[in-house]
């Protein structure tokens, strides 16, 4: 195919980027905020004079939670609109759907959401967490004395790739730590599952003799009924805490948090982060939403994916400046080892693959939908796209090895 370079648009005063987040359909719940975050970053950068002297022009499309449309829109952005980079996707399937398009057309996708790993494309910059940046620390924490020393784990998720892979890795990890098989239960519910009565009664039985916790990869609108039922059947964070990997501030924004208080979540970023950079980021985001008249206005909150979607734009801009060009290959090379002061503090691109090294935090849900940060990793945690637990023989290195390779 033609190179996705932007030389044609580079001669004009603007540089185009694509925004590929679902604004309608089932995923809109999560993705709309990411579009807003990208938009805000673009506005900020433009206000400061743009990138390489050019204003960024975002091309926003709505793939409508329709995976085929993701592929189509990706083609449109790369081939017809000739954008320099694309910021988008949330679900694994949407990423997988556009992946070949980006690879075949030499595009660059900034993917801001935590994901299951086991992938390392040359065309994707993964700003979200890899399993070892979210799942493993969370499990480790729960098993630790400080975390409560839990010994039984109920792995509950929505039935799709992320939970399945996440649980596979978690299970491998737990087993490796000497948790007996019978103390780990894995269960999945369909998307949009609303009725958790049966499952919670199973959990109740499982947790009866204490020291049990839930590792939840339940997605989207199933969460509220899940937590409600959990409380209804008399369980609580004291008896059996839920560690969620897919519940962030944005989801909690207007949820009835009453039932969630005291439960936990693991991410790389929380709005409650005390850094001044973050305080400014949060205030800016609220102001941005209010100014643009977006639903929620200044009640809006930031969360992990929002932070990384926002950071992604800056990373790209910084890399382009560093490379002195918008050309994908140059930007990509400039990204290696690039560091940036994100709202979450300094973060750093991996020197050899396309993932981001960043801190891991665990938070406890507060009644106002915010998180009490109760644990924080010592420093930046390096990304591992291939989990050593499930793929011990694989690693990813685009500098020396042309991507995924087999370790000796």
């Amino acid at each position, binding site marked *: 195919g033609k190179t996705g370079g932007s030389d044609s648009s580079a001669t004009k005063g603007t540089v185009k980027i694509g925004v590929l987040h679902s604004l309608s359909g089932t995923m809109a719940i999560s993705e709309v905020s990411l579009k807003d975050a990208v938009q805000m970053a673009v506005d900020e950068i433009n206000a400061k004079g743009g990138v390489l002297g050019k204003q960024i022009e975002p091309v926003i499309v709505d793939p409508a939670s*329709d*995976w085929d449309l993701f592929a189509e829109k990706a083609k449109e952005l790369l081939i017809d609109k000739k954008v320099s980079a694309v910021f988008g996707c949330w679900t694994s399937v949407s990423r997988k759907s556009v992946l070949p*398009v980006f690879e075949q057309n030499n595009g660059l996708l900034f993917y801001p959401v935590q994901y299951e790993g086991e992938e390392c494309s040359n065309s994707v910059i993964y700003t979200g967490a890899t399993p070892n940046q979210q799942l493993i620390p969370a499990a480790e924490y729960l098993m630790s004395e400080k975390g409560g020393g839990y010994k039984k784990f109920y792995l509950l998720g929505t039935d799709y790739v992320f939970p399945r892979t996440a649980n596979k890795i978690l299970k491998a990890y737990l087993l490796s730590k000497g948790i007996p098989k019978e103390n780990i239960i894995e269960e999945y519910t369909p998307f949009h599952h609303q009725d958790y009565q049966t499952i919670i009664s199973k959990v109740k039985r499982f947790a009866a003799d204490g020291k049990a916790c839930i590792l939840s990869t339940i997605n989207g609108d199933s969460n509220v009924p899940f937590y409600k039922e959990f409380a209804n059947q008399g369980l609580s964070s004291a008896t059996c805490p839920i560690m969620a990997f897919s519940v962030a501030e944005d989801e909690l924004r207007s949820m009835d948090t009453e039932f969630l208080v005291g439960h936990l979540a693991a991410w790389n970023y929380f709005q409650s982060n005390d850094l001044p950079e973050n305080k400014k980021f949060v205030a800016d985001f609220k102001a941005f939403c209010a100014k643009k008249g977006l639903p929620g206005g200044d009640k809006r909150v930031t969360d992990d994916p929002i932070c990384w979607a926002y950071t992604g734009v800056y990373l790209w801009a910084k890399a382009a400046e560093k490379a002195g060009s918008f050309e994908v290959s140059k930007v990509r090379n400039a990204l290696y080892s690039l560091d940036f002061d994100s709202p979450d503090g300094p973060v750093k691109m991996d020197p050899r693959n396309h993932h981001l090294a960043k801190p891991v935090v665990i938070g406890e849900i507060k009644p106002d939908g915010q998180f009490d940060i109760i644990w924080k990793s010592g420093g930046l945690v390096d990304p591992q796209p291939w989990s050593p637990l499930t793929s011990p023989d694989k690693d990813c290195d685009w500098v020396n090895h042309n991507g995924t390779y087999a370790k000796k």
Partner: protein
Amino acid sequence: MKTKNNILLYILFIAFFAILLPAGYLTGLLSVNTISVWGRYFCFAIAALGIDLIWGYTGILSMCQAFFFCLGSYGIAMHLLLKKTVAAGAALPDFMAWNKIETLPFFWQPFHSFGWSVILCLLIPAAFAFIIGLVLFRSRIKGVYMAIITQALTLAMWLIFLRNETNLGGTNGLTDFNSILGYSLSASSVKLALYLVSLAVLCTAYYCCYRITHSKFGKVLQAIRDSESRVSYTAYKVVDYKLAVFVVAALLAAVGGMLYLPQTGIITPGRMDVKASVEMVMWVALGGRGNLKGAVIGALLVNFLYSICTSLFPDSWLFILGFLFVITVLYFDKGFMGLGDTIRQKFSATRLKTSQTH
């Protein structure tokens, strides 16, 4: 007069899509993506023809066409994926390796061969349609009952395809193919070729459907739509007829799906979820039910609008499409195709009135 109009329409259609669009591409006015996108719409149109046969003509609202469509797509996808895997020297497609599957499941085996894949892509949907049809039509399920049952079936299949245990890629479906029959899928010429093939298949399918609906067989179908019992009392085996047309519709959907896959590059169970299966019916309804041209135009136009609007009006395209649906329904009697009729009728009505008063 009417046939003349029709022929003109056909010529226009073919001239536009077979000559103008490719020419536009070759002269660099259109990107290969535009061509490819239209190629995909053609696949939908092929499936829509099937829906029009089964629903428009026979009056059976089948909501499982999306499922047949996916069967076609999945079959080809399995073939392409296996080819890619073998070329890469791996034993198993990536996702199976992740799912810790040791050997290729038996039902993947035949898809090593392109010929077998095509045959199976047709055979499996046909067999499915035959069995489902036999069971449903025999117990005389009709009307909404039929619609909801087939919808339930699609839903069940959707849930099953979503599972990883089925070894069909789960929610992620099958994706990331590089070549078909040795030609690279990312090559523009291949995309153009696929577009032309789709167009040719669409035209052929249209012609076949035209012949079917204009034969006595077609009249029996319409008679079944009107009064099934009368058809029985006139000694036609209603079940046979319904079954035949159901299988034909399934085949058309599958063919559409087969051509759709290489042009889209991904197939996921999302193609057959509730929304998708309702939408397929909507194309036909909007185009004009019981009118083959309507089915084609409905499928092309709705999908075109969907693509265009999601890009041009990402925030408000649902409004636009929604209002379009409502307005089409309220003001055009027989969908898009009825547009001409409606206007003509209005015109002649006024003429009638004036001629009367004089």
